[in-house]
């Protein structure tokens, strides 16, 4: 299996970031376009975030990231901003599912030593590891189970279904 590498700059949030804080329910009433929604990312928590988000940013959070509503725009708006990975001590299960299903890499790991602006490198080679290039710390991120890995590697559930037409088990 090929190695996946995601380099990026840490953008740090706290615990219990619910999906309404990522993108409010009101916004998706008006548009589902990730390029529109990205303008409102984290508007309740950090009104300056959307203007400063860059394509090599990696979201870093504490526990229970993506709790609350299962709305999938909370993943597609993040992807729309160019972000490819989210690190958290734990995820709500619906956010984790939606991330895998859309090709956003969710990494469950100890994020306590990561600070805003740290340079990170996520590497996936059978297991996930996070290299904090700023501090030199290497953080274990576990492994993706087989079905999740297949969906993620296909680029999400849409390309997976386009290829297979159904779940391959």
């Amino acid at each position, binding site marked *: 299996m090929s190695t996946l590498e995601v380099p990026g700059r840490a953008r740090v949030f706290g615990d219990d970031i619910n999906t309404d804080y990522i993108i*409010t*329910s009101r916004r998706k009433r008006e548009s589902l376009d990730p390029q529109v929604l990205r303008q409102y990312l984290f508007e309740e928590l950090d009104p300056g975030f959307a203007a400063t988000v860059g394509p090599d940013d990696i979201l870093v959070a504490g526990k229970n990231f993506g709790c609350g509503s299962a709305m999938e725009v909370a993943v597609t708006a993040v992807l729309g901003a160019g972000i490819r990975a989210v690190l958290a001590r734990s995820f709500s299960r619906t956010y984790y599912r939606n991330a895998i299903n859309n090709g956003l890499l969710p990494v469950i790991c100890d994020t306590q030593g990561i600070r805003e602006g740290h340079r990170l490198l996520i590497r996936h080679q059978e297991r996930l590891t996070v290299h904090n290039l700023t501090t030199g710390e290497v953080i274990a991120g576990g492994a993706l189970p087989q079905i999740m890995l297949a969906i993620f590697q296909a680029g999400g559930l849409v390309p997976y279904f386009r290829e297979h037409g159904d779940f391959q088990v």
Partner: protein
Amino acid sequence: MSAKTISEKILSAKSGQDARAGDLVVCRVDCALGTDGSVPMAIDYFNAMGAKRVCDPQRIAFALDHYAPAPTPAAKLLHQRIRDFAAQHGILLWDVGEGIGHQLIVESGRALPAGLAVGADSHAVTYGALNTFATGIGSSDLAAIMASGRMWLRVPESIKITLTGRLREGVYPKDAALALAGKLGADGATYQSLEFCGPGVASLDLEDRLVLSNFAVEMGAKNGIFPADDKTTAYLHGIASAGSTAVPWQPVEPDPVATYVREITLDLDSLTPQLALPHQVDRVIEIGGATGTRVQMVYLGTCTGGRVRDFHQALAVLKAGGGVATGVQLVVTPASRTVLETLRGDGSLAEFIAMGAVVGTPGCGSCCGTCGTIPGDGVNVISSANRNFKGRMGNSSSAIYLASPASCAAAAVAGVITGPSEAGQ
């Protein structure tokens, strides 16, 4: 290695595999709900997958509940897309005014013991009260279910919640749910199942169990499942005789020596009225600790607290206390048209209106700020809902307290937060 939890048994049956906690399985889905909050994206995913026809459309239902009625032209267009897709594929559509999808799934007998029912909305966990494995999914999962009839699931570990005793007068299932959220925390059951059991289960009616199952997701749980008993049977027979689609079913019980990751006992006898403080659902205290906090808006409704008994409990407190205090706006939003009709038929609706309540369209209403009455700047809201995140009801300059319908009504009477027993004095 033979003993199984309820979740392991149901997911084994639905996957055709010997499913154990931690396994990833692909399951056949018995019932899937989409809402106006999730279906438009699901249609996009379905089309992008190259799918042409919906597999088993009779297993799918859509509810227009989050934008009910549609507050903007863009939301109107989303509704029309959903109506068109439903008509094209022969999918049941509950249009604006029918109510909250979760309530309609339960009322229509689509969630049954031993079944696997999911919803593209996190509060699909509600159906766990019926001994159904019920969980929330996203739009892409709903699209895959429409395309294939199946979904992938990680089999959850289970936390055994043993209920003992019975709730005292003036204490309600919502208080038990809040107490549990306070005990476990907002992530205390992440990726796991809450499996309710114990002698206290029999003291809870099906409507009461719906409140506890509904709240499971506020602790991060994948599902919150009850055993089936005489009350489950009575409820299902009741809706079947009312013309629902309920079919014969078999309950699923856990094996006596099934493996649990954690065991918690919740003594219903010792519970007191609870309150979640802004802006986290697990910031739970005894309601007396916030006595005197002014409220300007009281919200009764949602998939947690918008059923007939919730309104009856609230109305009893309001009547005993002499009505709504000056300066308090009371908003009443029944969870479904059936709930609305019942309240109309028994006179409760007229009494709420006589007290000055604003009555909203059956649906999600103000709960997630997408339609209905929005609180003003600086307003304190006390609500029978399940979430109090900052900005949840559409204004981040307001603050939301969560409590039982009776405690909400007590606050409406007093104009300040107070225990329900004090309101009538």
